């Protein structure tokens, strides 16, 4: 194939918007480029289920194509789907979200994050990002014109923020705070008490809480409650959810944003202009997922649970101290005994043992000294990866 590159013109000043120019590509992207050139890599670096979308859900999508349902839907998503979402959220949280006023079906959970920041933040207002966190929170805050305030959390506190740290981080310009439990990348969940403390803090400082709860259906041994289960936060809570993780529907690109009507209305304004509506075929599939998908979700959850126990057991056994994750599908072991930085560890492990993990620091500075290992991969692969990591650690362990 012949590729013609566009001529590069030199402009006297950058024609790229300053904030876009200052936004750095995700560290995951850089690591992806290292992995992509290698063969036979076992990857624990994947942030999506290894299961294919359950077949009955695919069937519903296929049927919608066959019957010609390929037009736009209403901006906020098919009403039929929003009604199912309303029922689902009510069952999961006890909260009543009106399908018309309180729910938008977004293009993946990511669009919801973007909409929330753009709706809530005026230029240079702050949002507290509880880290380690999903890679897009801080860049999207910044691109929305806001200032991300990075709030580190630590394994000894279960990767939940302490009120002292929160009080130090908040300023008169703080408008919002985003949390994600069960957490990507740590797998941490949050206790009822911590939920209540965070809610008190949010109310005390008149903030809006954005809670990314996409992993809530994937919890193990103990429940991780939704922030929406607490009535007093509901008028200042933007609840983000989605079909990607629990229903294994990443490529369908469907998320959920639910919240008070004024915020949802604001988010809807942006949404109608930038995406118009979420993909229609995916929405029909999602209706099927909510109506008849519980059993498949539960089967996947049980399988993740077995792998979770397996991988954390072995990390601890080989000396990679591993915080016990009770949600999502990530383990976040400490690599302290090797004396390497996260980046060095991940790069050397890839080079010497052909195993890909994601350096913890890409999820925030406090992720330094850890690596994220996804167990959304087959047990056979996890078994082999653990073996290789054990060899690697033995070789590089510091006395």
């Amino acid at each position, binding site marked *: 194939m012949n590729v013609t590159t566009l001529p590069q013109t030199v402009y006297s000043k950058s024609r790229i918007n300053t904030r876009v120019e200052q936004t750095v590509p*995700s560290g*995951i992207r850089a*690591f*992806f480029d290292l*992995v*992509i050139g290698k063969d036979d*890599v076992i*990857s624990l*670096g*994947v*942030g*999506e289920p*290894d299961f*294919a979308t359950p077949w009955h859900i695919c069937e519903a999508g296929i049927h919608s194509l066959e019957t010609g349902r390929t037009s736009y839907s209403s901006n906020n998503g098919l009403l039929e789907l929003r009604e199912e979402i309303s029922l689902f959220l009510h069952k999961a949280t006890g909260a009543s979200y009106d399908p018309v006023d309180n729910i938008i079906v977004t293009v993946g959970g990511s669009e919801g994050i973007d909409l929330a920041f753009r709706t809530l933040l005026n230029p240079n207002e702050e949002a507290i990002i509880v880290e380690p966190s*999903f*890679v*897009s929170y801080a860049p999207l805050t910044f691109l929305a014109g806001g200032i991300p305030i990075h709030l580190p959390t630590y394994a000894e506190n279960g990767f939940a923020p302490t009120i002292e740290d929160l009080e130090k981080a908040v300023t008169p310009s703080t408008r919002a705070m985003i949390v994600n439990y069960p957490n*990507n990348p740590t797998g941490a969940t949050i206790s009822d008490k911590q939920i209540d403390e965070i809610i008190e803090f949010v109310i005390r400082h008149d903030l809006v809480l954005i809670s990314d709860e996409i992993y809530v259906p994937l919890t193990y041994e103990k429940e991780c409650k939704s922030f929406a289960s607490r009535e007093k936060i509901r008028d200042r809570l933007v609840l983000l959810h989605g079909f990607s993780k629990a229903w294994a529907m990443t490529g369908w690109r469907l998320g959920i944003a639910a919240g008070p009507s004024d915020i949802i209305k604001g988010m809807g304004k942006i949404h109608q202009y930038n995406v118009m509506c979420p993909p229609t075929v995916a929405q029909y599939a999602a209706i099927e997922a909510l109506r008849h998908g519980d059993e498949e979700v539960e089967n996947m959850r*049980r399988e993740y*649970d*077995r*792998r979770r*126990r*397996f991988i954390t*057991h*072995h990390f601890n056994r080989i000396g990679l101290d591993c915080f016990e994750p009770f949600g999502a599908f990530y383990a976040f072991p400490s690599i302290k005994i090797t004396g390497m930085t996260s980046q060095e560890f991940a790069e050397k492990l890839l080079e010497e043992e052909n195993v*890909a993990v*994601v350096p913890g620091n890409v999820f925030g500075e406090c992720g330094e000294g850890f690596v994220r290992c996804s167990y959304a991969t087959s*047990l*056979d692969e996890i078994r082999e990866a653990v073996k290789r990591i054990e060899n690697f650690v033995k070789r590089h362990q510091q006395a």
Partner: protein
Amino acid sequence: MTTLRNKILEILDADARNTPAEVAVMIGEEEQTVANEIDNMEKEGLILGYRAVVNSDKILEDKVSCVIEVSVQPERGHGFDKIAERIYRFPEVRSVFLVSGGYDLLVILEGRTMREIADFVIEKLSVLPNVHATSSHFLLKKYKELGTILVQSGQRERMPVSP
């Protein structure tokens, strides 16, 4: 509540190569507890054996499989059990099921050649007293067996690293 047995069986059903130690880790139990429970299930005949799932289409040596619908006359006091036994005792018979509908027993037979299967049906099966009629269907292609898809479908490609 999922019982210990169910938890163990779910794992072994997916992959019987998992050792009791591995199963124990995966369900958060002691190795000895799991080993004992597996022992008990073997003794009680709940677990009858462990075998590989083989895609017989890939074995070069030819094999022929046949599904046979068999209509029989049940017997007083025994129902279908006696006649079923006279059929399942033959080693070439892989499976026998009593089914509802237009016939009674569904028999799955495996042989080396079509001739061999034909001989079985003609000489052994249809001559049994109480067997009224048989209808044989040779298998042409196996797509899925015992929950495992046997045909190659497109590999699902995931990005090796993603957020």
